[in-house]
């Protein structure tokens, strides 16, 4: 396992940010840490990136302990921060060359790697542009090119699609998948965006510093079963009781809405509308999403 986390606990003073977390990441996969902001993702990211020592527990990346051997870990990880980390006054190429120097790369080897990284992320025409003049999507791509320059085995990305428009987001996802397929790079991303999480090979759902679920997106969604039906009703309490009596299922009350997970969702929708004429404002149903999984496990929403 290229990343292994065992019983990781981290506290800021009296506040516990991570609580007894354990998981492993297989080499060559895209692994997502999904959870709401404040759920412990950033803390975990900082520990994996060797920016912070954990309070308790063991974390190893590429076979090295992040706390005891941070320099070895640093050689094998590429890090893409949520905030940007480029020098805005330098050109794209100057940023990449400076990064290469920090990793001891030079001469023809460095030049070849810079060219390769620029090509891989379709940035060749932008190499002479000052970073300040680039759009958000382009900058994120430069960040990734920069993080890949030393051929890391693990790419750590903190909320990579924050601030990107849908088009740039899709492009980014394609680039990530391509890296995994052609180079065998392991990608570990933190996210609170469902689309992005759906594209991961495996996910860990994080809530209040604890693991609530782990699996592939399909496995996680299969846990929910059937369809998710949302009924907007006049009186949630009365309706809850009536649905319990008539259908033998207990809806979850989320604000003004009753939420149900039903095996035969399509039939239920017609039946419930006929059974309570006038009491239902609107009906909606969808296949289970990761948001439903999270809601089931924690009673809280991701975004």
């Amino acid at each position, binding site marked *: 396992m290229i990343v292994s986390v065992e019983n990781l606990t981290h506290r*800021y*003073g009296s*506040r516990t*940010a991570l609580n007894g977390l354990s998981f492993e990441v297989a080499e060559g996969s895209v692994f997502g840490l999904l959870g709401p902001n*404040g759920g412990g993702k*950033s*803390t975990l990211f900082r520990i994996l*990136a*060797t*920016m*912070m*020592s954990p*309070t308790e527990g063991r974390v190893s990346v590429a076979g090295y302990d992040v706390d005891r051997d*941070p*320099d070895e870990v*640093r*050689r094998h*990880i590429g*890090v893409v*921060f949520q*905030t*940007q*980390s*480029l*020098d*805005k*006054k*330098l050109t794209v190429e*100057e940023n990449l*060359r*400076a*990064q290469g*120097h*920090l*990793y*001891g790369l*030079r001469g023809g080897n460095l030049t070849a790697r810079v060219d390769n990284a620029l090509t891989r992320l379709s940035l060749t025409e932008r190499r002479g542009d*000052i970073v300040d003049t680039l759009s958000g999507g382009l900058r994120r791509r430069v960040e990734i090119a*920069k993080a890949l320059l030393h051929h890391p085995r693990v790419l750590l990305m903190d909320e990579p699609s924050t601030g990107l428009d849908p088009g740039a987001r899709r492009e980014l996802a394609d680039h990530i998948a391509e890296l995994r397929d052609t180079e065998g790079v392991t990608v570990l991303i933190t996210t609170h965006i469902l689309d992005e999480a759906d594209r991961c090979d495996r996910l860990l759902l994080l809530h209040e510093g604890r693991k609530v679920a782990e699996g592939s997106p399909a496995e996680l969604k299969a846990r929910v079963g059937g369809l998710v039906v949302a009924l907007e009703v006049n009186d949630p309490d009365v309706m809850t009781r009536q649905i319990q009596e008539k259908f033998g299922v207990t809806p979850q009350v989320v604000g003004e809405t009753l939420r149900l997970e039903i095996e035969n969702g399509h039939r239920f929708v017609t039946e419930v509308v006929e059974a309570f004429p006038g009491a239902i404002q609107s009906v909606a149903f969808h296949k289970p999403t990761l948001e439903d999984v999270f809601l089931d496990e924690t009673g809280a929403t991701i975004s």
Partner: protein
Amino acid sequence: MKFWLPVWTLWQREMIRFWREKTRVLGFVASPLIFWLVIGSGFGDLAFFYPGALTLTVMFSAVFSTMTLIEDRKEGFLLSMLVSPAPRGAMVLGKLLGSSTLAWLQALAVLAFLPFTGLEVTAPGVAATVGVLYLISFTFTALGFLIAWNMDSAQGFHAVMNLVLFPLWMVSGALFGFSSAHGWMQWVMRINPLTYATVAIRRLLAAEVEAGTPSMTVSLAVTAACGLLLWAASTAAARRKSSGGSA
């Protein structure tokens, strides 16, 4: 891991950034010159105030050039350095060499006005001044680094500078000499590390040096010792690993 490659690249980065900010280049030279002309003309003694203006230039630009460290942190550039395997000592040295070179160049721009001061300095004297200016620049860059490393806002940095550095400069012999200072003030001047930088420059430029002024050797030794100490402290500060901070 190679040590000098990161040092070189960080030095080069400071040069490129500086060159691309043309207004910074101009402000760099203009403000100390105006200061010198105003004060010097006011007291009717351009020659006496010239060494003081020169040390003021090099000290302040050295300290202020490290303010870019706060920008580096805000803009995230510092983060990517910290997660790279480059030695922390190399990062600190690269930043110090880069920033101190810029401050030194600014001082040299002021030094170019030497022929207009009426001071008579030999060629070796000028060469030595150029060297000593770099030493002072490095020392004060290290001081700035140490302050900036622990600061997250430029405002805080300015406050420290105004409260500490400027008063220290005023009692460093730049505005009045040793003999014109009263009893306790002479002692303040002697324990003020800035005094030794000012004295070194004043002696080199053969401006009036009053009795009781520290010798050249002492001045250089104190300045160099301060520089080494601050450099070591900066490196130590950068090596400390975070165990918390804000989430």
